């Protein structure tokens, strides 16, 4: 549609900065001013049709980036283009081509039945009737919204509301979909349904998806590429497997033995990191097989129960950051 928009750099950030002036009240009238660089020289591109995980600890600059990509916030520096459009200058024009789902805040009309939000979108986005019908039917079927259409949004559960929000963001066939924590607070079934839907959307319609999340499973199941941001800078950009290596992330095997025993003599590189009565914690590289370790421990020790804990994203990033600071 727009000449000069290459599919490789469908979303393009070049040295983007966002500086906030934070004022803290220190007395009745005295205020302290402090500059906070929420985003600090961020550069990356996302190709059309890519599905990218955008992760980082709280306050890392994820939401600020998404707000700049949608045109809510104006960058303090650098250039930013989405589908060839400068979001801050042409916010309303861009709005027709993007869909946004904020995990914590609904874009639905709170006191009205769900269907009213969709009807309004139909008119507001000027979606052709046939297209609207088709998209709505598809979303209703795949996200199981049929019984919810006449229910006021405020009466929906978190998972129902999230599904409703995702449908609302997709009725106008956006080329880009931003999802901010789309599975936060959802039960296992809802999570699986949302993930399946997003995977199909990306595969069938080629919608570009940028996903911020705390849940590594979201990334594992959906994204071939992950970007890690911390302190407003890009720390990592690549496949998820590489992230585990870069962060030297470890999984933990928790075993309950029949009785208190000295620390298990685990095969390297696994090692016991904690002992508490009959329960012991063994750390091993995330890339190694758990089955092998379990088999060897079970053969030599009286096992009652065991569980494997996945690496915590915050911990992975924390280690990565410490490493980089030390280098």
């Amino acid at each position: 549609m727009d000449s000069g928009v290459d599919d490789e750099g469908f979303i393009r950030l070049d040295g983007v900065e966002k500086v906030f002036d934070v004022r803290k009240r220190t007395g009745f009238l005295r205020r302290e001013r402090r500059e906070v660089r929420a985003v600090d020289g961020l550069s990356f591109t996302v190709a059309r049709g890519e599905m990218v995980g955008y992760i980082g600890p709280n306050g890392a600059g994820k939401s600020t980036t998404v707000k700049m990509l949608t045109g809510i916030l104006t960058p303090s520096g650098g250039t930013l283009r989405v589908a060839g459009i400068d979001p801050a200058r042409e916010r309303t024009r861009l709005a027709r081509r993007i869909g946004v789902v904020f995990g914590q805040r609904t874009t639905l009309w709170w006191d009205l039945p769900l269907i009213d939000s969709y009807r309004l979108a139909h008119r507001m986005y000027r979606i052709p009737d046939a297209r609207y019908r088709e998209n709505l039917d598809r979303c209703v079927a795949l996200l199981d919204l049929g019984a919810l259409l006449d229910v006021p949004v405020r009466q929906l559960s978190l998972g129902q509301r999230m599904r409703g929000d995702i449908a609302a963001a997709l009725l106008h066939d956006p080329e880009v979909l931003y999802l901010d924590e789309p599975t936060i607070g959802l039960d296992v079934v809802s999570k699986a349904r949302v993930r399946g839907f997003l995977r199909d959307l990306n595969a069938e319609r080629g919608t570009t998806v940028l996903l911020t999340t705390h849940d590594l499973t979201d990334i594992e199941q959906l994204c071939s590429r992950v970007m890690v941001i911390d302190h407003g800078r890009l720390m990592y950009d690549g496949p998820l497997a590489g992230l585990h290596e870069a962060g030297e992330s470890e999984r933990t095997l928790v075993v309950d033995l029949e009785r208190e025993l000295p620390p298990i003599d685990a095969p390297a590189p696994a090692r016991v990191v904690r002992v508490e009565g009959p329960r012991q914690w063994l750390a091993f590289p995330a890339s190694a097989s758990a089955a092998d370790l379990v088999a060897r421990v079970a053969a030599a020790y009286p096992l009652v129960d065991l569980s494997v804990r996945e690496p915590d994203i915050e911990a992975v990033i924390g280690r990565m950051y410490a490493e980089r600071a030390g280098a």
Partner: protein
Amino acid sequence: MAEGGAGTGARAAGERGAAAPAGEAFPAGGGDGRVRAGLRTYGLIAGMWIRSTMAYRASFVMTVGASFAVTGLDFVAIWLMFSRVDALGGWSLPEIAFLYGLCGVSFGLADLAIGSMERLGRRVRDGTLDTLLVRPAPVLAQLAADRFALRRVGRVAQGGLVLGYALAALDVGWTPLKVLLMPVTVVSGAAIFAAVFVAGAAFQFVAQDASEVQNAFTYGGATLLQYPPVVFGQEMVRGVTFVLPLAFVNWVPASYVLDRPYPLDLPGWTAFAAPPVAAGCCALAGLAWRAGLRSYRSTGS
């Protein structure tokens, strides 16, 4: 809705210069398209709320009745006062009713059209303003139409009733000019109040707890105008004339219609100054709104 249009119009006119490409979003044409987009958005959202209200007709009739009765008590208080005195600062009960009715209808119309704006501060605080910014429609129109409450016609109707009583009870020497001045005054007054609503909302971008301050100017201003200017101090009247020109909502035009001395000895032609004053207010409010939204988009809070 005329005043809502005036407000968005002022804003669109301001925005055209700075962000020319924004016009492209509405191929219908330039800044004009922006006004049209605002009105269309307003109509869509307000229509949605009206349909939703009408789903419960009995409840709607009851709330309109309640709104009518509550605002009506307001005038009963004045009426009771006149059972003790014959005049207030030289103004008789029907004359006061004339002031009250003009102000009531103007304020009622503004409140009906864009009274929802006062919720901006809360939206900034809880972050839901962002959800309006990602829609392809002007934020001002979305905000003004949100929770459009048709029950607020109760206030307009009550003001109209009091105005009707005043017109019946008063012996006005009607001239064509005086007749013309009536609708012009009501519309201009509504636009002035609408400008105060928009400016107040714009202020909430900076101070999110300022909705009470805004209420002081809107509801407070409307209450003030129910009494003749002579009962207030000169400084107050000056402020309400030259700083926040609420005097043009009713005091000045009513003085002309009722052949009374003007507040502050203003010249006679000022009775007809309400439309330009209203236009100026809307333009200033539009600029304030634009500045407020720009500040929000650079600070995110």
